[in-house]
């Protein structure tokens, strides 16, 4: 009965903010090792969906399973469940009062109770993974946006998560810094990390994703391999969205 084989399973998920219905019945799964990109116009509910996966947003109804554990169960140990799920935010949300190294070690030490030496070793490994080992002693304010986002990725990875959530990770970045972050994410995907990515980067979705999900108006409109959803969309809503995104100077106003 318990769907242990799915990395993420979502059943009939609804989310209201007051009278506004943001998610209107989402059913969907992510398999281990899969990279799934969620695309869609702003206000389509894609960020809310992502935030429901680690319960930063409490769903109004429906069920969310991560690795077979039901996060929406009232007696779940949500802190324990979140340890397995890394999250990267649009605004990075690094801790400004700590150095890069402290940012990456604090949760390891306080949550996983790893020792100082071990947590620092793991932190440096992960900073190395994102190409920032020399910035360990800097403060977030001294880094560029792209560097901050890579530190945020290292911070999440240091918890050894089995699933990574990315909430528009490049939307707050200057265009020339987007590539650094996407490269790190592509490397992560190639290493086999299970990833759920809300993004506007169509090139990334096409090249890296195993599956692309198009959302609009709180429902999933299309779900399939990138060649299909981005290359040959079936629904008019998908087609019109992609026209706007891929060819922004020729949209019908």
């Amino acid at each position: 009965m318990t769907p242990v084989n799915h990395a993420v399973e979502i059943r009939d998920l609804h989310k209201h903010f007051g009278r506004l219905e943001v998610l209107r019945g989402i059913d969907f799964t992510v398999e281990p090792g899969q990279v799934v990109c969620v695309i869609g116009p702003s206000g389509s509910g894609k960020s809310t969906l992502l935030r429901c996966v680690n319960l930063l947003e409490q769903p109004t109804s429906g069920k969310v399973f991560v690795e077979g554990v039901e996060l929406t169960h009232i007696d779940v140990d949500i802190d324990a469940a979140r340890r397995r799920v890394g999250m990267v935010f649009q605004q990075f949300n690094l801790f400004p009062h700590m150095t890069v190294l402290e940012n990456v070690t604090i949760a390891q030490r306080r949550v996983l109770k790893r020792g100082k030496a071990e947590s620092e070793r793991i932190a440096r490994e992960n900073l190395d993974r994102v190409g920032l080992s020399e910035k360990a002693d800097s403060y977030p304010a001294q880094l560029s946006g792209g560097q901050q986002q890579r530190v945020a990725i290292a911070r999440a990875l240091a918890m050894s998560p089995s699933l990574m959530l990315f909430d528009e990770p490049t939307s707050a970045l200057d265009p020339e810094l987007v590539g650094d972050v996407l490269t790190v994410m592509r490397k992560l995907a190639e290493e086999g990390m299970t990833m759920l990515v809300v993004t506007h980067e169509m090139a990334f979705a096409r090249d890296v994703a195993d599956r692309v999900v198009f959302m609009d108006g709180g429902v999933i409109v299309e779900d399939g391999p990138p060649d299909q959803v981005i290359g040959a969309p079936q629904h008019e809503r998908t087609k019109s969205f992609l026209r706007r995104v891929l060819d922004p100077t020729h949209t019908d106003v």
Partner: protein
Amino acid sequence: MTDQSTATEPSGPGGPPPARARFSPRKRQQISRAVQYVILVVAALAVVLFVDWASLAQNFAKPEVAQETLPELFTIALKNTLIYSIGGFVFAFLIGLVLALMRLSSVRPYRWLSLAYIEIFRGLPALLIFLMILFLPLALPGFEVPGGLYGQGILGLTIVGSAYMAETLRAGLQAVPKGQMEAARSLGMSYSRAMISIIIPQAVRIVIPPTTNQFVSLLKDSSLVLFLGVSGEYVELTKFGNDLASTYANATPILVVGVTYLLVTIPLGYLATRLEKRQGKGR
């Protein structure tokens, strides 16, 4: 103002063309500044001529009396002022932090209690609180504030300071961006762990400049310890100055004490401003 009369022709797209005024703006500014200097000089002359300097010096700056204040001015009076105000500040900070966290708690009665405390003690004069402490043994027979007179003084300042501190800290806690809590929670930290490791340290940094000013105001309020009937080794600056002034029938000790307060408060004020500036730049 002066060009009003000449601006009669119909205005073009950019308004009427600038007419020639009687005085140019630069000229007007010069005149205005000259008038201000004249007023200043007249006022200064009036003060110099009409004040009886000899008697003023006799009463407020008599070197022999000033000398009598030493060394107790520093070894007892300033020391006690600092004990009362630092003690009050430390407890006010801790209680203020608890009140601020209660104010943001999800448990409604905690929010009410904290709000009631803050509203009551922010709205009462500090002197009234000290008088209440004075009458505390009558209200609660057998009860004694730990720490004797020091304890009573510190208690008064704690009550006065904690209500203000609570509001400052609440603002500080709320000024930490929401994403900080979300990031901490998404790393598996519990709410209280995230508060302790992530939110409170940032909030405290945010409130350092305003709390420095609150320390200055507690330092001044410590003069109210006078009303607790302190004497001997417990006197603080104001009481000390007042006693000596009575003894010598001369106001010099009061002036000396005033300067001693300023020795502490002015540097602290500068420190607060500098911390504020540094914060504006960093983060």
